[in-house]
C-alpha cells in the first residue's frame, strides 16, 4: 500500500486548515469563529451537497442497486449501536454506553462531504443517492440508542418523555430536513436552474468547506483536553469501531458490486460518528449521559482519524479489491 494518497489528502486545504485549527487551540490562540458563522457554513454545506445529490439522482434514476444501498445504509445505522452497546456496556454506565452507541451508529455530514471533495479531487464519480443514504442514517441510531438505554434500566429508573417524542425529534431534526429537502428540490428542478445555481453550490463549495474545517479543528482542539479524562480504552474504541465498520462497508460494497465512489461513501458513513445531531438529541432524551465523553470521541478522535487517514486508506483498499 502506498502512502501517496494519504499524504496528498493531508496536503489538501481542508485538512490543512483543520490542523491549523487544532494547532491554534494548542498554542492557546484566541482565534475563534463565533456562532452563528459555523451554523451558516454548515447550512450552506448541507444545502449544496443535498442539492447536488438530488441533481445527480435525477440523472441516474432509481435502480435496484440504489434501493439496496439505501436499505443497507439504514440497517447498518440501526445495527451499529447494538454491537457498540454490547462492548461499551461493560466499560461505561448504561447512559453513556447508549449515547456512545448512538453516536457511532449515526453519521457525520462533514466527514461525508470531505469524502465527496476527496472523490472530486481524484476524479471518481458517485451517485446522488448516497446523499439520501446519509440523510436516512442520521436518525435511526438515535432511536436505537435511546431504546437500548430504556431496556437496560431498572423499572424504577425509567423517566419522563415518551419514546414517540424521541422518534419525532430524531426524524424532524434540522439537518435531516435540510439535506432531504435540498435533495428533493435538486431532483425536480430543471437543468437551467441547476446551472444558474452552480457558482453558489459548486464553485465556492471547496472554499466554504475549507473555512468550516478550520472551525472543526478549533472545536476538536478544544475537546481534546476532555478526552484525557475518558481513558485510553474509550479513545481506542473511537479508532477501531470505525475501522471495523469500514471493513463491513467495503465488503458490502464489494458483494453488492457497487462502483468505487459509492462504496467509499457508504464506508465513510458507516465509519463516521455524529457530533451534531446525536448530541442534541441525546441531551434532550437522556440528559444523564455525559456529553464530555461522546462528543470528544466523535469530534476529536473519530472525525480527524477519518478525514486524515481513513478516507484515503479506505479508498485504497476499495481499489485494491476492485483490481482483484
Amino acid at each position, binding site marked *: 500500500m502506498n502512502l501517496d494518497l494519504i499524504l496528498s489528502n493531508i496536503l489538501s486545504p481542508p485538512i490543512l486548515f483543520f490542523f491549523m485549527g487544532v494547532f491554534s487551540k494548542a498554542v492557546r490562540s484566541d482565534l475563534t469563529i463565533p*456562532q452563528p458563522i*459555523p*451554523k451558516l457554513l*454548515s447550512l450552506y454545506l448541507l444545502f449544496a451537497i443535498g442539492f447536488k445529490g438530488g441533481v445527480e439522482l435525477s440523472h441516474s434514476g432509481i435502480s435496484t442497486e440504489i434501493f439496496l444501498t439505501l436499505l443497507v445504509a439504514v440497517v447498518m445505522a440501526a445495527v451499529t449501536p447494538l454491537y457498540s452497546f454490547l462492548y461499551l456496556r461493560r466499560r461505561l454506565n448504561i447512559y453513556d454506553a447508549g449515547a456512545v452507541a448512538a453516536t457511532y451508529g449515526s453519521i457525520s455530514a462533514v466527514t461525508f462531504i470531505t469524502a465527496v471533495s476527496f472523490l472530486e479531487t481524484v476524479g471518481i464519480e458517485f451517485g446522488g443517492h448516497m446523499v439520501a443514504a446519509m440523510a436516512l442514517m442520521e436518525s435511526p441510531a438515535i432511536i436505537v440508542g435511546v431504546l437500548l438505554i430504556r431496556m437496560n434500566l431498572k423499572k424504577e429508573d425509567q*423517566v*419522563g418523555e415518551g419514546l414517540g417524542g424521541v422518534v419525532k425529534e430524531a426524524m424532524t431534526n434540522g439537518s435531516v430536513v435540510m439535506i432531504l429537502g435540498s435533495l428533493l428540490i435538486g431532483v425536480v428542478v430543471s437543468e437551467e436552474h441547476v446551472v444558474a445555481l452552480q457558482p453558489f453550490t459548486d464553485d465556492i463549495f471547496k472554499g466554504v468547506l475549507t473555512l468550516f474545517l478550520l472551525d472543526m479543528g478549533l*472545536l476538536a482542539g*478544544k475537546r481534546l483536553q476532555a478526552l484525557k479524562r475518558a481513558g485510553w480504552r474509550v479513545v481506542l474504541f473511537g479508532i477501531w469501531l470505525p475501522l471495523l465498520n469500514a471493513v463491513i462497508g467495503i465488503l458490502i460494497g464489494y458483494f453488492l458490486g457497487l462502483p468505487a465512489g459509492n462504496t467509499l461513501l457508504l464506508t465513510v458513513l458507516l465509519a463516521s460518528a455524529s*457530533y*451534531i*445531531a446525536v*448530541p*442534541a438529541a441525546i*441531551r*434532550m432524551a437522556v*440528559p*444523564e449521559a455525559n*456529553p*464530555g465523553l461522546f*462528543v470528544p470521541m466523535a469530534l476529536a478522535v473519530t472525525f480527524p482519524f477519518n478525514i486524515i487517514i481513513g478516507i484515503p486508506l479506505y479508498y485504497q483498499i476499495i481499489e485494491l479489491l476492485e483490481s482483484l
Partner: protein
Amino acid sequence: MKKVKRVEIITGAPHAQRVISLLESYEVGGYTLIHNVQGKGERGMRDGDGLSDAFENVMILVVCSGDKLEAFANDVSKLLKRFGGMFLVSDAHWVG
C-alpha cells in the same frame, strides 16, 4: 409598586422549551428569555461551542406572585433535577 418574586432559571438550551411549557401550564403572566448563555455548574462546563445548541444555557426570568411561585416551584424543581440547571428566587418590586 407591587411586591413580586423574581425567579431566575438557568438550564440547558435543549430543555428550555420544556421549562417554558411547564410555566405556561401554570399560567404565569409572562417570562423573558436570554439565549446563548454559558456557564459552569455541577454538570461541568457549557461553553456554547459546538454546532448544535446542546452545550448552551438559557436564562429564563419569570416575575410572578409568591403564590404562583409556590404553585410551580415543585414541578420546576423536579424537572431541573433531572435535566440540570439553577433555580433562584429573590424579592423585587414591580413598578407599573
